């Protein structure tokens, strides 16, 4: 009896949690008029893909998609490249590891807006504000992605026994080639996880994107404007586009998610 109640509660909570996703997909594939209907509909009465085209007519959707993608991919490369050597150092030298840990905690402490406002002013000065290729935004997103890349890679390098690297050195390999041929291949799965997570951090990012770009926008601010100007169907269509990579990556990342790597990444 009590057990049945628990099961009922659990499934009710799960249903409510699925509702936002269901509604966004429903709004994306119903005619804009139906999204304004009263009382609101819970299942689509009419199916259409017109919202996707209409959204592309209302805002530069293709350009936004390309910019979101290129900034996210560039961020993956830069964040991993910068974090990788530091993560290896932190895993091998305890003192350096503790210090870098502290630096990373402090780096994550500052509010986005407190960095975004002065960064916008600086970028105006250097001609990177609203850059058509999103170079300024790329710099900001790299800053956001670094702690994630660092934490995942440091944990991965800790899992590589020092003896393996030492053995390679004894066999006459240089420090560099022992790293390239022994350590790096062993952390490849974590490298993949870090890449996907950093991609998502950039892909989902809203505040920097809003402040550092005005006309050359990525998807999150485009979605925000469509929603703020009162286009539920069109904004939902953009939302569905945004969801696709996010959902795929999160399914792949589920194990890392459960280990708590994402804790505290609210903003």
């Amino acid at each position, binding site marked *: 009896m009590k057990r049945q109640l628990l099961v009922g509660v659990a499934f009710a909570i799960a249903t409510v949690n699925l509702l936002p996703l269901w509604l966004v997909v429903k709004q994306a594939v119903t005619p804009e008029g139906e999204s304004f209907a009263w009382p609101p509909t819970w299942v689509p009465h009419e199916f259409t893909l017109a919202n996707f085209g209409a959204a592309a007519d209302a805002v530069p959707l293709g350009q936004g998609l390309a910019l979101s993608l290129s900034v996210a991919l560039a961020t993956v490369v830069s964040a991993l490249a910068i974090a990788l*050597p530091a993560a290896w150092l932190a895993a091998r030298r305890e003192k350096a590891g503790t210090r870098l840990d502290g630096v990373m*905690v402090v780096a994550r402490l500052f509010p986005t*807006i407190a960095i975004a406002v002065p960064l916008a002013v600086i970028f105006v000065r250097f001609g990177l504000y609203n850059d058509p290729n999103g170079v300024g935004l790329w710099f900001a997103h790299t800053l956001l992605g670094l702690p994630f890349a660092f934490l995942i890679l440091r944990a991965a390098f800790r899992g590589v026994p020092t003896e393996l690297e030492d053995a390679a050195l004894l066999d006459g390999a240089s420090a560099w080639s022992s790293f390239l041929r022994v350590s790096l291949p062993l952390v490849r799965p974590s490298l993949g996880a870090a890449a996907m997570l950093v991609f998502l951090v950039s892909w989902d990012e809203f505040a920097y994107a809003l402040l550092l770009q005005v006309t050359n926008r990525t998807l999150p601010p485009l979605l925000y404007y469509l929603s703020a100007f009162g286009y539920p169907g069109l904004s939902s269509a953009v939302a569905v586009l945004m969801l696709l990579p996010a959902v795929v990556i999160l399914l792949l990342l589920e194990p890392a998610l459960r280990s708590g790597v994402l804790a505290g990444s609210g903003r």
Partner: protein
Amino acid sequence: MRAWLLAVPLLVYLAVFLVYPMGEAVRLAFTDSVSGSFPSLASFRILADDRLFRDALVVNLLLPMVAVALEVVAGLGLALLLAERLPARRLLRAAVLLPFALPEIVFLTILRNVLTPRGYLNGAFAMVGVAPVDLLSPGTASSFVSVAFVDAWRTTPVVFLILLGALAALPAEIGQAARVDGASSWRRFWHVTLPLLRPALVAAILLRGLDALRLFAAPLVLTGVEGVPVLSTYAYHQWSDYGDDGAAAAASVVLALLCLLASAPLLRRRVTA
């Protein structure tokens, strides 16, 4: 080769894109936006005279408390519930994590559609004969609670994950011993489980509290810059609507100081750990 050189790219990057902008924020905050003189308290005087800023400061202190309280209660409840052996456990967990897995902006825009006067919540109310309410009406208690609730809903999974991990790490024998001693399930929870979860609860509260201080997208998307003002949206408002770099930077500096203060226990715990 000196090993510490490996950390140089990271440290240089942080110096250029974190330390330099923060320094620039302080410089801007103490520069008079009109005359350009430095140092000047003109921007802080603008803030002190602005009702919206004072509201933002108060809301920025209250909102995290309400949101984190909601999250901890919900996260603890969910962790206890899903620690049980229920059917389709993996599926239930995935559903609970979903709000945090969705991109923040996607979750917020759909929640706006849920909470507006002609939204889904009022639609559900109408089905049971309750008159529609304007939950997001600017400057009301209901819009404040709505923003806190939406943020709590989205970030409860973080608290849930921390507590679920802590629950799984508890030795099963302790609960069994209490059961053998005849303790009721409520007493077992209150006197055994909860004290053991304390470190995880404190960690979750500190972490989430620090995050909630920087709330930006939720109040902005749900209510605009003036509905439920916080320091982040205020700074954004000053910068984008008035083009006042000085006032925006000054509000940012106030927020950054708040975050520093709030993080003191977090940093101290790290040092002792």
